[in-house]
């Protein structure tokens, strides 16, 4: 499912100048190819290497697809920094998990993700910035709801693995967030 979403986005991105129906068709074909079971499918090899994307990645991919194909309005640039606390939170969590993999911490942070406390903590932290900055139901800012929605889905389904960290962030998303953070830092320095 995750890799099918990625290929749907890829299809939409490659057909920007085509009519909407064509874009949907190309996206659907590529998604079906990725979802196909067998070595002829890219999903077979991506799953072999990277298992499954996180729920947050899947929701972001779904949003990206909607934006590309339905030309959803982009939020006013003046509020572009509202996501930075969430981005920073993602970067910190991913970094802590990466170090955990090397047994740097006395306990196992990843193992803690199987328990209920990590879920509640992750949800509380993801909502803190929203409370502070003012989350809305606006169609301009659906990203505000991505992390809480992913955690709600996780609580209901235990997908993808039963570990909340796997629902919240995957290594590719972490790299993406690191890029976003570096870009924001660079822009802030340029502005000064």
């Amino acid at each position, binding site marked *: 499912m995750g890799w099918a979403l990625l290929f749907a986005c890829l299809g939409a991105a490659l057909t920007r100048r085509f009519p909407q129906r064509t874009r949907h068709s190309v996206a659907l074909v590529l998604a079906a190819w990725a979802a196909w079971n067998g070595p002829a499918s890219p999903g077979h090899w991506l799953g072999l290497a990277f*298992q499954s994307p996180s729920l947050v990645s899947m929701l972001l991919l779904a949003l990206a697809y909607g934006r590309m194909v339905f030309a959803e309005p982009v939020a006013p640039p003046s509020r572009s920094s509202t996501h930075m606390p969430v981005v920073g939170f993602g970067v910190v969590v991913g970094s802590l998990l*990466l170090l955990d993999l090397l047994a740097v911490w006395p306990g196992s942070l990843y193992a803690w993700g199987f328990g209920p406390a990590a*879920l509640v903590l992750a949800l509380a932290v993801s909502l803190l910035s929203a409370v502070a900055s003012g989350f809305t139901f606006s169609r301009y800012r659906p990203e505000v709801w991505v992390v809480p929605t992913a955690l709600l889905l996780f609580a209901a389904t*235990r997908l993808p693995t039963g570990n909340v960290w796997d629902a919240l962030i995957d290594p590719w998303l972490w790299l993406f967030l690191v890029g976003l953070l570096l870009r924001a830092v660079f822009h802030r320095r340029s502005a000064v």
Partner: protein
Amino acid sequence: MHHPLALQSRLTRAALALALVLCVAVLDGWQRPPVPAAAEAVFPGSMATANTAAGMDPSRLKPVASGSIPMPAGALAAHASSLLPMPEAHPAALLAFWFAGDRESAPNVQIAASQFDRATQTWQPARYVVNRHVMGQALGFGVRRLGNPVAWLDASNRVHLFVVATGWGGWAASRVLHLVQSGPENRLSELSFAPVRVLPLSWLWNTSYLVRNAPLPLADGGMVLPAHFEIGSKFPVALRFDGSGEFLGMVRLSSRTHLLQPTLLPQTPRHWIALMRDTRPEGRITAVQTLDGGQHWSDLPDLAETNPDAAVVGLGLAAGHSVLVHNTSPHSRELLDLSASSDGLHWSRLQALAHGGEGDEYSYPALAWADQSLWVSYTDHRRSISWRRFAAADKGAP
């Protein structure tokens, strides 16, 4: 103007956030498996009578049979056997699983199995029971190579296999594939497996966890499966499962980073020792212990026994009676011995299992207790799986 439904009051937003947290907490509590009871290990002889329990004293064990387990037709290499004792009503005393193919990590490696028949007192011809292409088709993504299998019998007598399966990369890119018997029968001739899932053990694409040694059975019908992380740092972990094979969580056994392939030896139901392979030059068998049924672990001093960066396997037969199979030469795998201990930490040689010369290799031992006998299997020159059977001297084997 851009936010018609903006939540203007910070108090309103906080109340909504709190409601969401509560909603998720309730949903999570409803969906989450119940917290397992404290883990208590059971010894193989926990159901034994006083008469049979006496036979579990390692000092009374004498060799009664030995040989090689039949290989599947055409297999040139074999490695990493796992022994599974079967219930008394089963026609086989033991099932054995190992990986076989052209060579270790070859594309045609599959998981082979054989069973030791109680009626004929022989090992049955081996057959393959796990194929990576079939598993990849069932999982929906590829499995590049297959490696160590570890077998377990759940509370319903279904056979589970935990198999090392690689993604992109070598053994360091391994994952642990959990399989369960897919048919109603667990006889060798009808044994087949379906994947449950790849166990979620690490955040980085679930990479670099392997299994090698047998699980520790628990009184609740579940078990604790020892495993280890291998890429760069090497550290041991223990994975808890309930009686149906549901994965319940994991705990790291040590923060030292040169320990792998733990083997679990119960000393009492709640006091367990894990012994491990040591990757350091001039290595020793390393040890950790838990006093609370695996919830917390602490490092112990290295044992006096040398370890040439080779797998060891232990088995707690009864309180005060443990056995260990290990390579006893400091720099090679040419000597393989059976030792005994009363505390799991101080060992004395009991039997020589295989003593070869330079270039010989006897490795990756496995242990099991079945039919009032101690069974040992090990890799013989990476070409075949050898086995030994020991029984109390005054009883003998059938």
